[in-house]
């Protein structure tokens, strides 16, 4: 056997090499793809956690030592949290109550205890809080004096020792050695033993512990500034605070997760763990009440998981298509190998080889290249791709290997045994596939891929549905295709030229082996079409959503409405047009004179705004025509519309006259307003007339190129007004980036792009197989036809006519499928995480890509002619005819 295997392998090295290369590539892709994706997901998870606002991912447990009456000061002596050691023990205890996955992500813990801020005697508004920190002493450097020690006895209770940040001491006007006294009851005497400064100001410790770096400044409504300083005490000082003063003490334990320890796979578990910990902690009875856990970590994770699921869904659909195409091409290579060894196997069968021996030979032959190639592919992937190996990869590689080895074996085994009616079995298999695809689509539409598989990941069967649909569509199209071709043939038979007739006749009589490459081609085109449609539609929705959120290329918000500000903005560099929206918060909606609700009134010239935003895809309604004296037309937000019942509607502001309203409709979104908010749009001139113009705030929607953000910011801010003169600028780019940027957004783009390229490669391979496999047979047919008088030129166009209909049909069908797929799967794909909540509804084809595809097809058709010319030149007419039947 081994001799036969060796000799056959040597004889069929070309086919085996092709098979091996394809297996290698498939194995590499199957392993490197998921690895890279998982690495990307993890990167995105880390980026999400690391990029969250400072401290928002911290888990903060808070509890209190309640204030006690001065007479019961010693009551708190027995409390476990009334000592530094007790706090540390509790810190460990709370952490121990976190579920293991969550616990593993926590890298730093901190515990703080602080009194409320207490006024200080002396000039100015100065307040002091005495605090104990488990970690601060390790992050500070004394610039004068010494660290605090145990309180010393004094006339009225203990005199505490504490250290202050240098900057806080400067604000308070105290220095080392000073003794300050609180105005609290009872009063505390505090000796400042030293001043400190951050040992490493750049350390990540300080943003979360600002109170140990400097005093906070608080402004009262009256404009007075209060200095809030925190002084550090030592453990004995803390103990004394607990048992010898009656004041409330706020306890906080802070647990900071490390972004580096968060993985995409753990993210859903982590979010649940946070909830569980938050539920568990308050049930502990410690001293007075159990701690409460506060964090935004779970929200951040939930949000991430949402985006992650969408990304995984989109990419899994795309990858399933790619994998199907890869398997298809692999199947083609396996079939080619089978065809190449068929004659040899027939000889062996005639010489007494059993089916098992034949199948064994074919399988051994394929295994000879498949197994090393798969191993090499996996190795190459392990060396080049980052990210952990995924079980799904091994399954995919196993499937590839089984196809590469099994298909030739089955074909070889079947060859020896001749059974009738394989076509029926094939028909049943194809019908089953179609039914499976349709049922899958139905399930997918009902259940969805993204929204309902929350937590359980992406369903592999449902992810495969689009690929299945592609294959099913391919089978149907290619079953039906011969019918119109035959009809066309009948029509063409009447024509003068023989070429179209013969070409179409040959195209309509292609055998089953010709179907597989066309299915692959259709699938490839469908995957590309799907990706490009989703991307184009996503980009469009993102663009519109950005315009909806921003209101233009930029939006300049000024806290105080002023016509001069609007003018300044209009004159800013790059501004082509600007439309102001005067906004009055806290306007009252009146119904028959009674206040129905408070809402935000926005005065805007919708006509001007619509003209300005023409061409952006943003839909802006227009004001209905009104006659002077009529009530003013108003567009209500859905939330405000619910309140606007009853007749005699009017709008009243703190300024000027009241404005009679009539309902002109509802508007769900308006730039600068949250979609769920209560607001009402009225014509700008009506609001300005009633209020006198320069009241409320203003949002100025701007369009233009190369906008100077700094200039805009200068234009809207009016420093002379202080706080009320504040302004801000939001640009299209900033908002758009928040939708599209980020690792997940990149992954989708890159994933689609790369999948498209790869699948296009597989499609090309499939077409090449059609061309090369057909070339020999076509060459023979052409040679016979040339003996009947076919000219060389006609022979050349024959290849074109024969290839073009199938190629064109498969491509067009694939493209149409790609366009229809997003619509078909509509409810199953939730793209809202990428659009700031706007659903993607309009799926639009990507015209440049369609044009590219058409160009590619032309190239292929040209290639067919070229290949035929080359093969014909190599063999020559006489050669073909002399070879005869063999």
């Amino acid at each position, binding site marked *: 056997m081994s001799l036969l295997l060796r000799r056959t392998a040597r004889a069929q090295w070309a086919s085996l090499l092709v098979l091996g290369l394809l297996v290698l590539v498939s194995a590499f892709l199957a392993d490197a793809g998921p690895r890279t994706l998982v690495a990307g997901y993890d990167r995105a998870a880390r980026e999400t956690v690391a990029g969250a606002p400072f401290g928002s991912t911290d888990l903060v447990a808070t509890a209190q030592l309640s204030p006690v009456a001065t007479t019961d000061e010693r009551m708190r002596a027995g409390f476990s949290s009334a000592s530094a050691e007790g706090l540390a023990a509790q810190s460990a205890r709370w952490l121990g109550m976190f579920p293991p996955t969550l616990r593993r992500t926590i890298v730093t813990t901190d515990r703080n205890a602080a009194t409320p801020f207490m006024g200080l005697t002396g000039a100015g508004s100065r307040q002091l809080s005495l605090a104990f920190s488990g970690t601060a002493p390790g992050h500070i450097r004394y610039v004068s004096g010494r660290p605090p020690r145990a309180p010393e006895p004094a006339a009225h209770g203990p005199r505490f020792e504490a250290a202050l940040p240098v900057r806080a001491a400067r604000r308070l006007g105290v220095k080392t050695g000073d003794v300050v006294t609180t105005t609290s009851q009872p009063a505390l005497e505090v000796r400042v033993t030293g001043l400190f400064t951050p040992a490493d100001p750049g350390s990540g410790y300080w943003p979360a512990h600002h109170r140990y770096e400097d005093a906070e400044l608080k402004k009262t409504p009256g404009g007075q500034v209060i200095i809030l300083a925190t002084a550090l005490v030592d453990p004995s000082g803390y103990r004394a605070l607990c048992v010898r003063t009656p004041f409330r003490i706020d306890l906080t334990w802070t647990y900071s997760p490390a972004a580096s320890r968060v993985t995409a796979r753990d993210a859903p578990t982590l979010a649940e763990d946070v909830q569980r910990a938050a539920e568990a902690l308050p049930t502990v009875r410690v001293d007075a009440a159990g701690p409460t856990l506060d964090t935004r970590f779970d929200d951040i994770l939930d949000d991430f998981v949402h985006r992650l699921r969408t990304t995984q869904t989109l990419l899994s659909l795309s990858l399933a298509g790619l994998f199907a195409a890869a398997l298809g091409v692999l199947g083609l290579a396996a079939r080619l190998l089978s065809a190449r060894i068929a004659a040899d196997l*027939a000889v062996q069968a*005639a010489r*007494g080889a059993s*089916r098992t021996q034949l199948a064994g030979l074919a399988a051994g032959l394929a295994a000879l290249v498949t197994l090393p190639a798969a191993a090499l592919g996996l190795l190459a992937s392990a060396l080049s791709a980052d990210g952990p190996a995924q079980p799904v990869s091994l399954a995919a590689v196993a499937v590839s290997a089984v196809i590469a080895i099994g298909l030739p074996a089955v074909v070889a085994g079947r060859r020896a*045994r001749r059974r009738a009616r394989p076509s029926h079995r094939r028909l049943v298999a194809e019908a089953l596939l179609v039914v499976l695809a349709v049922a899958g689509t139905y399930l997918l539409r009902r259940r969805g891929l993204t929204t309902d598989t929350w937590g359980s990941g992406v369903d592999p069967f449902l992810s495969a549905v689009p690929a299945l649909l592609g294959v099913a569509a391919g089978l149907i199209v290619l079953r039906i295709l011969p019918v119109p071709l035959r009809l066309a043939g009948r029509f063409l038979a009447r024509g003068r030229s023989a070429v179209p007739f013969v070409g179409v006749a040959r195209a309509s009589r292609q055998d089953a082996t010709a179907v597989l490459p066309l299915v692959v081609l259709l699938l490839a085109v469908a995957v590309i079409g799907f990706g490009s449609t989703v991307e184009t539609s996503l980009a469009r929705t993102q663009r519109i959503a950005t315009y909806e959120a921003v209101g233009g290329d930029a939006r300049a918000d000024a806290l105080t409405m002023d016509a001069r500000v609007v003018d300044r903005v209009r004159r800013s560099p790059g501004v082509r047009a600007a439309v102001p929206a005067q906004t009055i918060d806290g306007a009252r909606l009146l119904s028959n004179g009674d206040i129905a609700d408070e809402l935000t009134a926005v005065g805007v010239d919708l006509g001007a705004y619509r003209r300005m935003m023409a061409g952006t895809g943003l839909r802006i309604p227009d004001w209905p025509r009104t006659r002077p004296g009529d009530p003013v037309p108003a567009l209500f937000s859905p939330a405000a519309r619910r309140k606007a019942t009853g007749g005699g509607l009017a709008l009243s502001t703190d300024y000027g006259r009241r404005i009679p309203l009539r309902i002109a409709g509802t508007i769900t979104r308006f730039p600068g307003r949250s979609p769920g908010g209560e607001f009402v749009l009225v014509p700008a001139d009506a609001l300005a007339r009633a209020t006198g113009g320069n009241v409320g705030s203003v949002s100025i929607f701007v369009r233009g190129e190369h906008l100077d953000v700094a200039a805009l910011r200068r234009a809207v801010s009016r420093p002379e007004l202080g706080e009320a003169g504040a302004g801000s600028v939001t640009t299209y780019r900033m908002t758009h980036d928040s939708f599209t940027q980020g690792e997940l957004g990149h992954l989708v783009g890159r994933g689609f792009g790369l999948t498209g390229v790869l699948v296009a490669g597989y499609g090309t391979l499939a077409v090449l197989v059609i061309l090369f496999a057909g070339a020999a047979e076509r060459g023979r047919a052409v040679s016979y036809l040339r003996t009947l008088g076919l000219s060389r030129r006609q022979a050349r166009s024959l290849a074109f006519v024969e290839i073009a209909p199938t190629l064109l049909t498969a491509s067009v069908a694939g493209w149409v499928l790609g366009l229809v797929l997003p619509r078909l799967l509509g409810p199953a794909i939730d793209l809202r995480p990428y659009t700031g909540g706007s659903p993607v509804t309009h799926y639009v084809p990507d015209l440049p890509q369609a044009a590219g595809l058409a160009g590619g097809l032309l190239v292929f058709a040209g290639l067919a002619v070229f290949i035929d010319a080359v093969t014909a030149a190599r063999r020559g007419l006489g050669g073909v005819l002399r070879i005869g039947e063999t």
Partner: protein
Amino acid sequence: MTDAPDLTELERRAAGRGPEYGEKAHIVCDNLVRIYQTEGVEVIALQGLDLLVEEGEMVALVGASGSGKSTLLNILAGLDVPTAGVARVAGADLLDMSGRDRLRFRRELVGFVWQQTARNLLPYLTAAENVEMPMRFAGVGRRERRERAAALLDLMSVGDRAAARPAEMSGGEQQRTAIAVAVANRPKVVLADEPTGELDTATGAQVFGALRRANRELGVTTVIVTHDPEVAGSVDRTVGIRDGRTSSEILRRTTRDASGREEVIAEEYAVLDRAGRLQLPREFTSALEMKDRVRLALETDHIGVWPDRSNDDHR
């Protein structure tokens, strides 16, 4: 009524029936029918063909193309299954064979030689390796394989080409190697389909000689489908097939004439099938303008056949 045989009598008669048709023959085809469909058209390739070949006989099948001789050979090779009738080769019933039986049949009972080298030999094996191949499949030991392959190649006079690949051999050498391959597993029957079809006369004669040697020295029953008159004229019996039936047979005897020279006498016979049907050679019937009907008359030692003249009488 009382003469009617009872059941035991009938059973006794059934059991004691005379010898079955072709019971002793090595290849038996009885009323063989093969109908197949290509592109919806029904083709009746064999329409009740009878053929008997004795053990050790060398028979040539001749006939026009499309007469059904290749179909017959494929059936005898176990590659095709007849639609109806009886086909037995070396005791194996070709209509009722399991996959395992068929494999045993191919391995042990028959060997094939085809016209094209590609169907006979694997191009990437040497002549010796090709001869060893069937023995490998049958699980013959390495040493025995070697010895037998060498012996067979010697017998076919291509022993010196044992290490050559098919592409390095002449057409005649290829065919002789193919014969060695065919007899490698000591089959009872060798079937050859146009073995000399692509060869010139001299080479064809060599190949036929090799077949003849295999037949004589190994005692293999040999059936050759051929168009080659040289081949057809050199076997003991030539069976003509026409329209899916055996129509004529030529028997050859070797006698010595008065001067002591060997002389081959060929006598042509028409085949009389079991139902008593007889195909008259076309040249006989057209010479006498026999059409539609003939008149027969039984004489003491022959049957007379006359053209039907009754129409002429009436005219």
